[in-house]
């Protein structure tokens, strides 16, 4: 908007400090990568893992193939990450596990986000006894550390992938509930909410149509961080023997399988999957952190 095209009342335009608009993600990402190397690094790391998850299986063999001839082999050209006690290619398993872990993380975080956002929006908007009731339930959930809660739920529900997703989602939903609720409490007092009511909107429509989209910003950021934590939790659960069990390839499972061999020198069985966990969590954390600063 040049000086000459604006009406006289806005002849001067001060440089604006824009927050992160919910929509124009493309330009926002572009701006973030330019300004913050951390974001770029995180993005690259995650994209690498995603690439691995999507296309890695074209480069590797069967993750479940047992081959007693090549057990416990150190990393080499044929087996870039070595083989484990059953002769399975560690790299193949790492790749297969990346699919699983990313999927768990994505679904768990999405369910936590969606469910938490809806619950948070409804309670934040209605206040009253509904709000009190829900928040007490949330308090109960948050009395436990998220991982412990996930452990308990998985133990209760049974050791399947689906249950791991549910357990992790439930463990993290309180964060989303609180975030969206607090945004909603402020938003419902906004003048445009009052205006929406004046033109004849029903309360439900005001909440979903007008307010909710404006409340999701911090929750989206939290969602990004949650992706990383979900991977950590899923891996932690399977390391403990809950959730995903061998022979399914999952990073936590692999780490567990390799612990007994570390002392005898076959470090590659645990270390590589462990490294993948670190990279994934680190990458999501970097992205989420920079996003949070941009939104603020």
């Amino acid at each position, binding site marked *: 908007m040049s000086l000459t095209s604006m*009406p006289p009342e806005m002849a*001067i*335009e001060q440089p604006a400090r824009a927050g992160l608009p919910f929509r124009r993600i493309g330009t926002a990402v572009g701006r973030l990568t330019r300004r913050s190397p951390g974001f770029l690094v995180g993005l690259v790391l995650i994209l690498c893992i995603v690439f691995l998850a999507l296309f890695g299986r074209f480069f590797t063999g069967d993750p479940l193939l047992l081959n007693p001839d090549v057990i416990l082999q150190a990393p080499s050209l044929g087996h870039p990450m070595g083989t484990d006690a059953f002769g399975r290619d560690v790299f193949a398993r790492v790749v297969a596990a990346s699919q699983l872990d990313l999927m768990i993380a994505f679904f768990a975080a999405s369910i936590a986000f969606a469910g938490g956002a809806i619950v948070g929006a409804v309670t934040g908007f209605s206040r009253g006894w509904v709000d009190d009731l829900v928040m007490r339930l949330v308090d109960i959930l948050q009395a436990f550390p998220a991982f412990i809660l996930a452990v308990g739920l998985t133990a209760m529900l049974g050791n399947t992938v689906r249950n791991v997703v549910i357990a992790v989602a439930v463990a993290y939903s309180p964060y989303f509930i609180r975030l969206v609720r607090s945004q909603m409490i402020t938003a419902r007092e906004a003048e445009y909410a009052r205006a929406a009511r004046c033109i004849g909107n029903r309360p439900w429509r005001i909440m979903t149509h007008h307010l909710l989209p404006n409340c999701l910003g911090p929750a989206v950021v939290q969602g990004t961080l949650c992706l990383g934590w979900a991977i950590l939790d899923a891996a932690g659960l399977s390391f403990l023997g809950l959730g995903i069990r061998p022979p399914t390839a999952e990073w936590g499972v692999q780490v567990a399988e390799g612990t007994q061999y570390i002392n005898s020198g076959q470090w590659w069985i645990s270390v590589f999957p462990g490294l993948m966990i670190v990279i994934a969590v680190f990458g999501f954390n970097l992205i989420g952190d920079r996003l949070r600063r941009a939104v603020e």
Partner: protein
Amino acid sequence: MKAQSYAAAGKPMSGGDGGRSAAQGPLLRIEDLTIGYFGQDRDEPVRIIRNVDLTIDHNMIVGLVGESGSGKTQTARAILKLNTRPLQPLEGHIFMDGVDLLALTGEKLRAIRGDKVAMIFQDPRASLNPLMRIGDQLARIYALHQGISRAAAQAEAIEMLRRCGIAGPERVARSYPHQLSGGMCQRVMISLSLGMQPDLLIADEPTTGLDVTIQAQILELIQTAQRETGSSLLLITHDLGVVAEVCQRVAVMYAGRIVEFAPVDELFTHPRHPYAIHLLQASLALEAPEKAAETPASGYPAEASPSLELSVGQETYQASLESARDPDATAFMVEVSPGHLVLGTPVTVDQAVPSGFLSGQAGAKV
């Protein structure tokens, strides 16, 4: 007595002459001030406020008028080097007592702030510490600036509150800012600023947002205090009524430039710059509706560039919105009558433009 009724005393030194204080020289002289920021291009800054010249004499109230975005607040803030980031003064000087304020830093700058030049802002509550009682805050500042003891500063604070017409100053001194109304907070700020006895007080929209009866009180207070202390006042406002009541000289800003600077009577009866005329007509349209029918203030076109001709001696100048907005135009302040300056670009005789769309108003060809 609950209410007083009296005709306003004649304003001191009405009518611009500039000559009375000539012996002393002006109190503050802003010369060619340019304010801007460095955007993407680190070498070439974006100039928001350009080539501002403004003179404030001793014991005078000068008004700085403009609409939002005209640059009046940032111009005033530059005097104290308090521009909001990323804006900063880029070029020019601000002379006070022979010293260029823009060149000062550190201790010397702090010595000026509050002592010689004080500022009050639009939202008085934003200037007060919400966690401290009023009396304590004021006392602290007085003690710091005047080097007196805390107890003496407390007494001084209460006395200044009383002199600013605050009933029950002891009670106010014991209160916290949130317990006081907006008008009361503003009076506290005025009492503080004047208690520092600055040479220049800058008031940035001090009554905007206050009720009109409170505004009348505050303006009354500002005028009385200014008369008593002899400080000069730079009053920033968008309200021409306030300007007419209080100010002796007025500068009109538009698009980051001063487009007209004149004694207050002159400005209201013989405005010369199209923008100043436009502003006056807008306020008249509301105030005196019978005149609104004559003037096309409502149909003011955004794109057209009405311009007027100024003749000074042998030379002709063109005053227009375009030349004010255009950073490349060679425009400078032209003295059309003593003390009355208008922003104009020189034109040669064959390029003289016809009078603008404003029919028959003051300001068409001289």
